[in-house]
């Protein structure tokens, strides 16, 4: 560019040079903006030079105008380049901190019991058990009588059952002259005869429901859940029961875990068993947490012929097995979960609930 104006000496080149000097020192977009205002703003250098236009000779004015315009374009170009460079510089210099706290999504929590029920159900579902539901408040016919537990029998005390106050005008629930009480089911076994009464075979059900018993301590709540398995078919054997329980234990507790059956006594099964699983802490060696390497899981047995009869099934043709265990207890026995009081599950404390 040739700024060869005798009367203004080197005003235009000087302006350009001064601009370059300031530009080189700029490191922030704020000072870049103030540089822009100083040169290209309303009161800026370019406009100040423009004001000199009337003072020029008429033949010089056209050239001066062109030069001034070129100067303005050059300044704008320089500013734009500098702006881009500043932007690149700023993004590569600003500190990226991955430890900044997250913005938490608004996500709730399923309850531990729901987690447990889903896991239990999914295991039995894979081996063909169909989930069912039966009344939680039921007649004592289904809760006891039909399960070979007549009212006079001592076994019935042990269930610590809640009874419901009946209104005076209450339709009878009697069957064969028994079962006129309404109870909070102390176990899910009331579903056994109810399921048989549906009239289909084979039965392969898993009944998971709320139960209630008159007891409350660190390992028992008045409200708790049980899961009840019932399989009725031709030629059902203890081997089948063991097969199913082994499958459950390996899937629920881990592939190395084993189960064993010990003789026990329940009115609605014959024979009856207590089921143990090898201890997860000592691996079956025996430790202070278990009994000689084994932990008690719960009860099971072969369905008593009287129960099959109550459900309208011929015990000479069909047989079955059943088991009914506490959901909370079974889940608490998983390694790693040490909840000191089972009743904590029923206190809606978010500090607790948000951990699951």
């Amino acid at each position, binding site marked *: 560019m040739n700024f060869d104006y005798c009367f203004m000496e080197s005003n235009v080149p000087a302006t350009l040079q001064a601009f370059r000097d300031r530009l080189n020192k700029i490191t922030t977009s704020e000072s870049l903006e103030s540089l822009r205002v100083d040169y290209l703003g309303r009161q800026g250098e370019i406009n100040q030079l423009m004001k000199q236009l009337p003072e020029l000779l008429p033949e010089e004015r056209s050239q001066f105008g062109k030069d001034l315009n070129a100067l303005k374009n050059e300044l704008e170009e320089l500013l734009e380049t500098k702006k881009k460079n500043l932007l690149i510089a700023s993004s590569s210099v600003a500190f990226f901190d991955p430890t900044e706290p997250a913005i938490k999504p608004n996500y709730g929590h399923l309850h531990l019991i729901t987690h447990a029920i889903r896991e239990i159900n999914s295991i039995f579902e894979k081996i063909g058990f169909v989930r069912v539901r039966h009344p939680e408040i039921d007649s004592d016919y289904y809760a006891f009588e039909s399960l070979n537990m007549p009212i006079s029998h001592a076994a019935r005390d042990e269930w610590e059952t809640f009874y419901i106050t009946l209104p005076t005008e209450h339709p009878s629930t009697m069957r064969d002259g028994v079962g006129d009480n309404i109870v909070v089911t102390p176990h899910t076994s009331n579903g056994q005869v109810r399921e048989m009464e549906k009239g289909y075979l084979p039965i392969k059900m898993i009944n998971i429901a709320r139960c209630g018993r008159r007891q409350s301590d660190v390992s028992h709540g008045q409200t708790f859940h049980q899961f009840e398995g019932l399989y009725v078919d031709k030629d059902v054997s*203890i081997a089948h029961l063991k097969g199913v329980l082994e499958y459950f234990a390996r899937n629920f507790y881990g592939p190395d875990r084993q189960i064993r059956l010990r003789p026990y006594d329940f009115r609605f099964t014959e024979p009856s068993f207590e089921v143990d699983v090898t201890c997860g802490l000592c691996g079956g060696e025996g430790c202070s947490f278990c009994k000689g390497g084994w932990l008690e899981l719960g009860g099971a047995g072969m369905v008593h012929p009287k129960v099959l009869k109550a459900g309208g099934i011929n015990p000479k043709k069909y047989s079955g097995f059943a088991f009914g265990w506490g959901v909370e207890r079974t889940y608490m026995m998983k390694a790693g979960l040490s909840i000191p009081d089972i009743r904590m599950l029923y206190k809606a404390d978010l500090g607790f609930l948000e951990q699951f």
Partner: protein
Amino acid sequence: MTILVPDSWLREYVNTEATPEQIAQKLSLCSLSVEHIRQIENEPVYEIEITPNRSDCLSIKGVAREVAAVLPRFGIAAEFVNKYSSVALDDSGLAELDLDITIQKESLCPRFTAALVDGVVIKESSPLIQRRLIQVGARPLNNIIDITNYLMFDCGQPMHAFDYDKITNHVMILRQARKGEKIVTLDEQARLLPKGAIVIEDGVGRLIDLCGIMGGYNSAVDETTKRVLFFVQVYDPKRIRQTTMALGHRTEAAARFEKGIDLEGIVPGLAQAVLMAKDQAAAELAACVIDMGKKEDKELSVVINYSLINRVLGRKIASEEVNSILSDLGFVVRDKKALVPSWRRGDISISEDLVEEVARLYGYFNIPGQLPLAVSGSVQEKTFYWEDKVKDILVAFGYTETYSNSALSADLLKKCGFAPDQALKLKNPLVKDNEYFRPSLLPQLLEATSFNLNRYDEVKLFEVASTYSPYPSGELPNQPMTLGLVWAEKSPDLFRSVKGEVEQIANSLGIYDLVWKVGQSCLPVFNSSQTADIFSKEGIYLGSIGGCSPAVLSRFDIKTSVLLGQFDLSVLTSLAGDRFLYVPDSIYPAVKQDLSVIVDENYQIGNFFFLQLPEESSVKVFIEDIGVPYRDPSLGEGKKSVSLKLAFQATDHAMTDSEANNYREQIISKLKDKGATIRGL
């Protein structure tokens, strides 16, 4: 119940080289659960759980029988020794026992035996007897009382010792207690007897024994006693049980009587008592022994169903092995039948019972597991799938799930405006706080909200569980699966947010076009003027959402806004279905326009969605959304303005503005018919 069995005492009945650990382990696998081996008085003592069907094992002798049957199955030699089988009393030449006995009703006491000893010197028992009583958890008292306790633990036969000279006129009338009668028992407790308790009255009408449970204080053996009447009976087990339950007092003796007694153990037991009295108290038999009533049970044979045994075990067991197992357990096997030993008549009566005997001794550990491959004859109800889905969506909306007790207190019900007398009531609550079965999930959700607001600014909770109401029609209480939810936050307008959540949940269940009405029949815990009842398009009631009653909020000291919801989940899941419909999307863009409409304040703006819109094949006209109402004096008194987002779309061409305007004019005319005015027109 659990019993304690000292190792050396056990070994008096069974000869074996087995270690205590072996005994505990093998017994647990095939018979009784040995819970622990304890060390008491420097000796291993087994703590054994006895199930209700095995009352025959409530003694050292009973446990020993099992040990002797089980150990050989593991190749460990063991032999049962029947200690007292040769013990017999010789009362020849003695006078008849002077005791005038009346048994009012034979069923009260089917067997009555007694023996009198004279010359008793009351003192401490021998160290061995004292030590053993301590080991089994009993307290040594004196040589006579200790004999009765010792023999009860030893062979399972409870017995009593009277001071013969305290039985006035030597008269005993055994009868049922009358209402209001009292007795002071050995432990010096005065007990009010329930009607039907078995008692003995002496010659002057004093009650001297609460039979089967505890003796009377007035006839008790003391340090001056010279003549002792040993008393061994069988009582009606049901009455003993009912009496102990009514009194709330179960003794070791009662626990055995109520399960039934081995009739064949009675005479040996009585004889052993007399022999021990001679040994421990220098006493001699002084009169003929009394033995009245039923001497033995009818013989009981049970058919051995070999094929049933094979079927239940899932494998073939040779009949010889079956027979040998049953013989080891004391059964007499002949002609495919098993004669039940006297001590097992309480629990063995059908072929299935024998299966258990064979199976447990054969060893459950010897039966390999086998997965049954049969498929259920029913199909899976989808209810559970839908419930899971609802829960998952709620969690995604930020709600946390709770589980609460099914029962709650009258106080909590009242706090939430519920009348306790409308709720299902327990006859026998454990504590007063849990007397009612909940008619709603909201009281406990509010309680939880109030608790959690101490630590959290915002609380979103839900619970899925049954609620209960007494007998609307059928035999059983109504107990539908219910969904309750609560959202507490500072923001005052939660209604539209929860409405959106509810619609999303319904849509995910394939339920569309919910109908929202001002709440009519909502629960008392709601603020009725700010509650909506929600119906399916067919008019089925699904639930309600709305603000919480201010009175209830103040009782819980909750200061934030609270929105509550309760739904009959059983209805929702019954209406649910996979209703996925595919509607091809138009490739031509929609024309979108806004329209501001002024309506009366009390006009329900959701009705705009149900406006009859112009219908033409290949053209869709719809209201996409309705804005938040805007209120301003310039609109006029009692008026509000809302903006409607209109959309016009053709499936076969790009909609032109003039076409769209034509439809818009049709909509405007419909709106005017409804009494709306259009802003800007």
